[in-house]
C-alpha cells in the first residue's frame, strides 16, 4: 500500500500585509489542497504542520490544532466518533515537509488512517525586531491518500551532515534593554535571529547532489530513470546551486521567478513539478530538499499514466 498526492495547495503572504499569520497562510493553502483533492476537511484523519516559524512564537499548543479547527477537520469529535482527526507539529527545518510526508505515509501504510493533510507555513514571528530573516511568508499543503503500491511515493531517503550544523541557525533570543515606554525601564524583548553562513547553500547543494547519487544506487536506479529532478525552493539559491552540481541537467526543474519560502519550499516546488508533469507526461519525480543540519531529504514519486494531480 503506497501514499499518493490527492491535492496540493499553496499560499503566499501579500506584500501589503505587515504581519501575515502563519496559521492564516496554512489555512488558505490547506483549503486549496482540499478543494483540489475534492475532499472535505472532515475526511482528514491526520494533520501534520511542518512549519518552523509561527505566530507569536507559540510553543504550546502545536500550531496544527489551530489549523484543524479553522478548516473544520472534526474539531469537536471524540475518539468514539465515526470521524476524528489527530494533529501535531513536526519540525526538521526546510526538510520538514518531506519528513512529515514520510511520517504520514507510515500511518497510511498500516491502515491506521485513510487520509492525511501535511501543511507547512512560516512567518517572521518578531517582525519589529529580527536579524537575518530573509524568507518570505508562504505555505504549502498536500492531501495524501492511499494508493496501489506501484504509484505515489515509492521511497524516502534522509541523510544528515552534522559537521556543517554551524552553517545555519535559527533561534529566538532575549535582547535586554530597548526603548523607554512609560516610567519603568524596558526589560527587553524577544528577537528572531537567523544566522546563515555564506557557504551554507553551496554545502546544501554538495550534500544533496551526493545524497541523490547514493539514493538512486540504493534503489537500483540511474538518473536517466528520473523524468524530473525537483529541488526544493528553500533555502534561497538552492535550486540554482543544485542544478549546477548536476551540470545543468535539463531535467532539473527551476522556479520561473526567484522566491524565498522556508519550510513550504518543497511544497511549492512540487506544485510546479506536478504542473510540468501534466504538460510533459513525466511519470517519475525525485524531490530533493536540504536545510539546517545540514539535512537532506529525498522523495521518489511515480505518477500513473494520465494522472492529473493537483490540477
Amino acid at each position, binding site marked *: 500500500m503506497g501514499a499518493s498526492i490527492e491535492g496540493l495547495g499553496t499560499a503566499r503572504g501579500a506584500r501589503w500585509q505587515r504581519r501575515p499569520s502563519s496559521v492564516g497562510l496554512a489555512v488558505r493553502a490547506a483549503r486549496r489542497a482540499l478543494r483540489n483533492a475534492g475532499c472535505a476537511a472532515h475526511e482528514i484523519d491526520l494533520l501534520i504542520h511542518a512549519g*518552523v516559524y509561527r505566530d*507569536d*512564537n*507559540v*510553543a*504550546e*499548543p*502545536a500550531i496544527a*490544532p489551530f489549523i*484543524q479547527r479553522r478548516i473544520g*477537520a*472534526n*474539531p*469537536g469529535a*471524540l*475518539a*468514539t466518533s465515526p470521524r*476524528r482527526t*489527530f*494533529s*501535531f*507539529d*513536526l*519540525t*526538521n*527545518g526546510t526538510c*520538514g515537509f518531506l*519528513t512529515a510526508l*514520510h*511520517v504520514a505515509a*507510515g*500511518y497510511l*501504510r*498500516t491502515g491506521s488512517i485513510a487520509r492525511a493533510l501535511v501543511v507547512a507555513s512560516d512567518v517572521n514571528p518578531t517582525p519589529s525586531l529580527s536579524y537575518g530573516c530573509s524568507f518570505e511568508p508562504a505555505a504549502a499543503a498536500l492531501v495524501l491518500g492511499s494508493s496501489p503500491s506501484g504509484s505515489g511515493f515509492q*521511497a*524516502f*531517503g*534522509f*541523510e*544528515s*551532515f*552534522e559537521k556543517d550544523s554551524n552553517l*545555519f*541557525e*535559527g*533561534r*529566538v*533570543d*532575549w535582547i535586554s534593554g530597548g526603548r523607554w515606554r512609560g516610567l519603568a525601564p524596558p*526589560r527587553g524583548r*524577544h528577537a528572531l535571529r537567523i544566522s546563515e553562513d555564506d557557504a551554507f547553500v553551496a*554545502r546544501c547543494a554538495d550534500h544533496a547532489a*551526493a*545524497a541523490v547519487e*547514493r*539514493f538512486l544506487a*540504493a534503489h537500483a536506479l540511474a538518473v536517466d530513470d528520473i523524468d524530473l529532478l525537483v529541488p526544493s525552493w528553500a533555502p534561497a539559491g538552492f535550486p540554482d546551486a543544485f542544478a549546477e552540481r548536476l551540470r545543468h541537467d535539463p531535467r532539473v526543474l527551476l522556479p520561473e521567478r526567484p522566491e524565498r519560502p522556508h519550510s513550504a519550499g518543497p511544497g511549492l516546488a512540487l506544485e510546479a513539478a506536478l504542473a510540468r508533469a501534466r504538460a510533459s507526461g513525466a511519470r517519475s519525480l525525485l524531490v530533493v530538499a536540504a536545510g*539546517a*543540519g545540514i*539535512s537532506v531529504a529525498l522523495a521518489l514519486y511515480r505518477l500513473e499514466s494520465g494522472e492529473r494531480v493537483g490540477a
Partner: protein
Amino acid sequence: MRPPDTSAAGPPRTADRERAPALPARSRIESLGLELPSTRLSTAELLASCRRGFRVDLEGLTGIRERRVCAEGEDSFTLAIDAASDCLAHSRHEPRDLEVLISCGITKYKGRESYRFEPPLSLAVKEAIGASQALHFDITNACAGMLTGVSILNEFIRAGSVRCGMVVSGEYISSISSNATRHVRGLFSRELASLTVGDAGSALILERAPEGSVGVEACELLTHARHDRLCIGGACPDGPGASMKTRPRKLHDVAIRVGVSVMRKALERSGLERMDQIDVMIPHQTSIRAIHAGRKYSQAELGSFARDVVVNVDRYGNTASTTLFMALYQCLEERRLRPGQRVMLMSYASGVVAGALVFTVDELVERYGRLD
C-alpha cells in the same frame, strides 16, 4: 582542488525499505531513561518569590510539595542528551541501532535565554549520543509530545519499515514559573498553572517485539481542536524564557471528557472490555486534585477503573511532555511492576489532545531497580 566532503556519517538511510516481519508487527518498550536536575525548589520557596502578595495555598490546592529546576548550564538540550544516555545505558541496543530519533519537548532551550528552532534539537541529541543512522526530527504536541512520538514510531514498526528508535524529551520549562511569580495576583490568575511545573528529561527506546511476545497493544490519540485556546504558551512578553496562560478548570473538564472516549477506544483496540482489566494507570501529572477528579469522572463513565493509579506530581510537579515516561521509569526503579501486568499511560494536553498507550509489561522490569 579536493572535492567537497559530502560523505554521510553512515550508509544512506532509505527509511522505508521492507524488513519482512509478519505485519502488522508489534512494538514494545525496550528501555527508558531519566534525567532530573539536582536542584530542588519547594512550593513554599517558589511562592515566597511572588511579587504581588500572592496568598494562595498552592500546595494544598495541587498537592505539589516540590519540583526540580535547572541550574546554570542545564537546559532542554542537556536534559534530553542525559536522558537519552541513561536510556542507552539500560538498553541492549547500541546508538547505531537507532533508526529514528524523535525529540518531543515543548521547550527547545539551548542556553537559558535562547530558544532554538533550527537545526532541530533531535539532531543535537543524535550527534551527542552517536546515533549516526537515525532519521531525526522534532515533534511538538504540548504535554502529549512524547506519546505522539511513540505513536509515530509505533506506526513505523508496525509497518515493518523500522526495527527500533528513540523518543526523547528535555523540558526546561520552569522559566514559566519564575516569570509567573511577577504576574500572579490570586486564585483566578491565568498564570496560576505555571507555578506547578518542574524540569526533567525522559527517553525511551521502542523496538519491534519478537513474534508472539507481548508489547504495545494500543496507541490512541485525538485532537479535540474546538478548544484550541485553553492553554497558550510562548515567549514571555516582558522577560527571558516563556510564559503560559491557562483556563485550568475548563481545560480539565474538556480533557477528562475527551480522555474517557480515548480510554474506551484504547480498551477496544486492546481487546479489553473494562478498565479494571488495566492493572496500572499512569495519568499525566498535573495536580493530585486533578488526577483524583479525573479518576472519579472516568470511573463513573466507564463503570470501573484501573487497580493502581501512579502519582508522583507531589515530588516533581508537572514536567510537561515527560510526565508519563518519567513516572513509568520510577515505577520500574521502585519495582512496582511485574511481567504480565497491563499498563495504560494516559496523556492530556493543550490543543486539546488526549492519548492512551496500553502495553503489557515484560522482561523490561529486570533491567531496573537493581540494588547497587
